[in-house]
């Protein structure tokens, strides 16, 4: 299953004591391709032609088909669920689709052309205990190949504690 092997393994369990304000969320690399957009459309049920039809995308003023905002949101979900591990719980999660992203075209049936790689990243902004819950807040975002944050957001997670 090359699809699975291309991305890293899910990390071992993260604990509340492991993170401090300023800690980095383990970054996640992503490559949007026209093929991924088709798969996303089918899996999510978003069939807006803005994401696969050149003529329609042009008529909507975005130039050519753009990456679904919700796909970038799903990447950010993966960023967080990878980081917090099986014992963590993603409590709140938001993002804004600020900048357009354009997928790589396919070179072969399975391989994309050379081009942009996106990075999902985050930093811890706050950690506190509320009742029996150990809570960590993060700024999260998707960065395009030029290092611009096209999809900024926030996440709040509940982590297990060693205490």
């Amino acid at each position, binding site marked *: 299953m090359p699809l699975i092997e291309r991305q890293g393994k899910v990390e071992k369990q993260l604990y509340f004591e492991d993170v401090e304000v300023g800690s980095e969320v383990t970054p996640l690399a992503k490559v949007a391709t026209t093929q991924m957009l088709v798969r996303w459309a089918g899996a999510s*049920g978003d069939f807006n032609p803005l994401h696969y039809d050149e003529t329609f995308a042009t008529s909507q003023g975005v130039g050519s088909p753009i990456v679904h905002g919700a796909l970038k949101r799903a990447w950010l979900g993966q960023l967080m669920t990878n980081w917090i591990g099986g014992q963590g719980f993603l409590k709140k999660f938001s993002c804004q*689709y600020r900048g357009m992203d354009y997928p790589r075209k396919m070179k072969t049936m399975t391989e994309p052309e050379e081009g942009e790689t996106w990075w999902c990243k985050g930093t811890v902004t706050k950690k506190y205990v509320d009742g029996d819950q150990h809570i960590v807040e993060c700024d999260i975002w998707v960065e395009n190949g030029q290092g611009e944050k096209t999809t900024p957001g926030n996440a709040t997670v509940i982590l297990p504690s060693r205490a």
Partner: protein
Amino acid sequence: MTQGPALTDEVRAMIGATSEPDILEVERGAIRRYADAIEDPNPLFRDVEHARNSRYGEIICPPGFFGWPVKRSGRMGLTAKVREALAKAGYPRLLDGGVEYECFLPIRAGDTLTAYSKIADITEREGKTGKMTFTITETTYVNQNGDLVVKARGTMICR
């Protein structure tokens, strides 16, 4: 002042409108297709054996996935009406602005969710390329036990 379209009474009247509930079935296969589409190998979303031994006892949904609608008339129907009214008011182009989730319980394969949507607000603002409108849709997802699982707040931009 930039001249541009303004919110019509028809648009304003949509604020507070609620949808028919959507019913969504959460199937293992739909969860796996979703995880495959984003290339997420997390076994919690695809490995039944691993999931059985996890704290969840069953495959769960990745954040932002709510299964597949049995019928899709509710929220989509509601936002379609708003879009139509906004198009008539001079805002024909649609963009997804973003979303905010608050999660209360995990969503497991085998769950059936009921989703209730409401148009919480419609506002207009001057953007770089002229006036834009922001429609906020609030959706509440409840599982088959009547428990609240997720609250979502989506922003639809029409310009």
